[in-house]
């Protein structure tokens, strides 16, 4: 197969699908409500929606790594914390 050298698996494909969906929906959101919704959040940072997505995704990566390092598998706890992070960041940061 053409893509066999990339060694795709379902979980990694779902992960990238999530990233692509997130970026696309940011585009759609921007189309209906332009300007990026800039504000100064609780951390004193000026953020737009894109910044908030970046902070959430990067933060989730580190939450998962920390969960794996300290608690081990399974990673559901890390996933729940990450979802909480997403909500908190998009609401207040």
């Amino acid at each position, binding site marked *: 197969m053409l893509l*066999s*050298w*990339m*060694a*795709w*698996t379902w*979980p*990694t494909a779902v*992960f*990238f699908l999530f990233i692509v969906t997130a970026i696309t929906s940011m585009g759609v959101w921007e189309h209906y409500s332009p300007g990026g919704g800039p504000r100064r959040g609780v951390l*004193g*940072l*000026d953020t737009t929606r894109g910044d908030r997505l*970046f902070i959430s995704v*990067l933060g989730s*990566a*580190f939450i998962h*790594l920390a969960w*794996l*390092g300290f608690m*081990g*598998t399974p*990673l559901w706890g890390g996933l729940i914390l990450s979802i909480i992070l997403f909500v908190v960041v998009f609401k207040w940061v």
Partner: protein
Amino acid sequence: MIDKTTNQKAWFLVAPVVVLVAFNALIPLMTVVNYSVQETFGDNIFFWEGVKWFEQVLHSERFHDSLLRQLSFTSIILLIEVPLGVAVALSMPKKGPWVSVCLVLMALPLLIPWNVVGAMWNIFALPDIGLLGRMINGIGFDYNFTQQPTAAWFTVILMDVWHWTSLVTLLAYAGLCSIPDAYYQAARIDGASSWSVFRYIQLPKMKRVLTIAILLRFMDSFMIYTEPFVLTGGGPGNSTTFLSIDLVKIALGQFDLGPAAAMSLIYFLIILLLSWVFYTLMMRNEEQ
């Protein structure tokens, strides 16, 4: 309000860059992510391993050690190169024929290929035949970078400072040259000391270029490979095995592609996080 005509067709002009980035960054990165959750013995046969490699890397003493070495190296060179670069830029002439001489001299180290820099410093610092090594031994210090970890660190840091301080200098110099004369005249009228001129005029005006300089130096030094590889090969022992050298040892030396992929992703996330923190902090100061 000005009515701007929006023409979204301009986005097509970005398409070549998107394709290029897809081929040289996105697709390889995706492949690394795929490799990081699998085991392979070559021949495109893969076995699902889940997050085992990530767990292994996170608990690996070897990874902790090279990360610590990497962080120390990067902090040391940033602490030396940024103030030194600014100091050199301040002492460079602003007008006259010496400007081009200084600029060319400063640009020279940046033009030398990285492996050549490593090879040059290797020969330069050899204790028996190298000019530097011979000299240090001659004035009474016991110096042998192939056997002493401290000497190896000293040489690697000196080499990096020699190679990259010019970048900070050139950027800082560009920042200095963009300050209009009116600021200096105002400072002279107020009788400002040279420290106040530096603190309240030159430094704030250089902030933007220094942000870029620090970010570039941070990322480059955090990913440094060629120069220490040629100079010390990561030795003596493991004393100068930085993250990238360790990564190559795992990936190509031991051919453990899964753990190497997991390690490179963690490495990438650390660089991303630190760059973001640096950038955010410096941009925040700018507004205040």
